[in-house]
């Protein structure tokens, strides 16, 4: 295809992506370098040409005007990145100097908002992803042995939790584990503790969110692996049987290696989707115990009346850096594959 034709074909999609994905990233970066105007600062702005009069009252008009003239706020450099709500190097330095044990140090770090969100996001990603892959593989093997009649319906049922709107799906589970809901009440009954609530403790909240994550994404890995199982060549399986491999051995040495490319594909997709965990925290109202990176950005933007664009921007940039780090191995590998194909 000629460069010119290619350009016209790709133009609509490329301009959409540049305008609404690439430029916003730049816009986020610029925002993160500014902080909102303070009202006190405006008082000094109200100085007349014949010297300043000392007055401490807030000039609303001037504040408005200033906000209108420079909606970004005032330049702050990397200040927002370094403050307590983000990387908090100063606080960590103090904690490092003052705490005696590793445990005490991590307690202090864990109380800093950004690191708390990062810890939850990484834990969620690191627990849900392998669980979903293992369970998905097991269920795919199970469904594969089912009689043909049941395969269609089981795929139909499995698709429901995956395709349901995340906010809605997590609400459905939330209502069930509510202390008056069917599961919540049953758990209280089992442990014989009428005050037991899954929302009350951090560990249980995390567990609840992780259960939701597994429930929601398991179908994806299951269906992908199931489709992969249909392509395992029969003759290789038979050959391994002839060679005396047990069922378990042929599973480990024939089927699983055949599915390996799928495993890396599923891992990539799951990492991307789990890293942006957001809606379940809104649905479960779990913000007291569990906040993700996406959630703290959302919270900054919703700060009523005065959204913290600078703070949201800084967290967004740090999140984007996280995504890039997460994807680097994949990108490097794809780049190598591409070069190998090209030569």
């Amino acid at each position: 295809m000629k460069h010119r034709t290619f350009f016209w074909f790709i133009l609509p999609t490329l301009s959409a992506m540049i305008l609404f994905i690439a430029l916003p990233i730049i816009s986020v970066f610029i925002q993160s370098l500014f902080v909102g105007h303070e009202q006190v600062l405006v008082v000094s702005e109200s100085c007349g040409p014949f010297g300043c009069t000392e007055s401490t009252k807030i000039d609303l008009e001037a504040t408005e005007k200033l906000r209108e003239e420079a909606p970004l706020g005032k330049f702050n450099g990397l200040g927002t990145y370094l403050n307590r709500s983000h990387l908090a190097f100063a606080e960590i330095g103090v904690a490092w100097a003052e705490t005696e044990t590793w445990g005490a140090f991590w307690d202090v770090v864990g109380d800093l908002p950004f690191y708390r969100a990062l810890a939850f996001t990484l834990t969620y990603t690191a627990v849900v992803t392998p669980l979903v892959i293992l369970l998905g593989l097991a269920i795919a093997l199970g469904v594969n042995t089912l009689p043909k009649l049941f395969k269609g319906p089981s795929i139909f049922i499995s698709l429901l939790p995956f395709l349901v709107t995340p906010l809605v799906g997590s609400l459905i589970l939330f209502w069930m584990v509510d202390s008056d809901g069917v599961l919540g009440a049953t758990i209280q009954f089992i442990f014989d503790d009428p005050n037991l609530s899954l929302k009350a403790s951090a560990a249980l909240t995390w567990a609840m969110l992780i259960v939701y994550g597994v429930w929601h994404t398991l179908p994806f890995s299951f269906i992908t692996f199931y489709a992969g199982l249909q392509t395992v060549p029969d003759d290789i399986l038979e050959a391994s049987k002839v060679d005396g491999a047990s069922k378990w051995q042929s599973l480990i040495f024939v089927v699983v290696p055949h599915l390996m490319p799928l495993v890396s594909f599923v891992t990539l997709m799951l990492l991307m989707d789990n890293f942006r965990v957001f809606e379940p925290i809104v649905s479960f109202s779990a913000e007291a115990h569990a906040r993700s990176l996406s959630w703290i950005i959302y919270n900054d933007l919703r700060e009523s009346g005065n959204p913290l664009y600078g703070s949201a921007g800084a967290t967004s940039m740090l999140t984007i850096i996280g995504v890039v780090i997460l994807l680097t191995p994949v990108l490097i590998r794809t780049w190598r594959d591409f070069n190998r194909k090209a030569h």
Partner: protein
Amino acid sequence: MATYAESRMTPGKIIAFSLVGIWLVVAAFPFVWTFWGSFKVQADFFSKADWTNALWGVKTIEETGGAFTNQGYHGAWVIEEFWQNVINTGIVVFFTVTISLTFGTLGGYALARSGFRYAFWLLMAALVFRAMPHITLVSGYLLPFFEWNIWGHFATTIIVLVAINQPFTLWMLHSFFLNIPKDMDESAMVDGCTRFQAFRMVIVPVMWPGVITTGLFSFLLAYNDFAVTAMLLSAENETIIPAINSFLGTTQIEGKVMYAVAAVVSATAPLFVLILFFQRQIVSGLTAGAVKG
């Protein structure tokens, strides 16, 4: 033909079957339960005393006289005017899907037919864009959109959703067009067609299976979105997912949780129908990227 050895129940098979059975119950039960409970009153659905109340509707019979009530649905659709949100969602989803597919087919076709290095880089960039959490992009939109006074309108949200959709659409249609033999459009061009004519007359007639599959996923992305629609639409243009979330804020105090339950069931219904009719396309779409590697 199944031999005796194949149809015999081994311990391995029993474990496999029970695992599948447990999963199917876990997958389906929440939906069945919530659907059933949406026709009850709150005292039954959130029953402190006895969970079987939700099955038989003890309190529902006391309060309304029948075992089933449509109070929740009435409250959501009529009193809270949920139908307005449904119309809004319809508008947003329809235009998002149509525009995404138009842009995506043109771009995906070009990427599949271009052997140049920049096509590869575009696909890689799309992969990185695909991984961006949507809320990070939203935080970049808000300030400029307020400044230019385009915040809150359907058009803004639609084009944003189209853009967010593009990386995925491009990847999927790209791998789909790779499967259509090059000879088809190239022979048309030998016969004197321009590239665009070849695309329109040779490729368009055979591309519909791929477009429908991609369209299903574009639909899901637009329909399921919360981060973008919640932040970029004004109150009167609100779509159903943010509406359900704002229901929760206002209804929990007034004891009208059942409105939200009814709204949740109403929002799930279209997805249920979608899976019912397009199960095969969805499954093939899920695995399309994987099989190509």
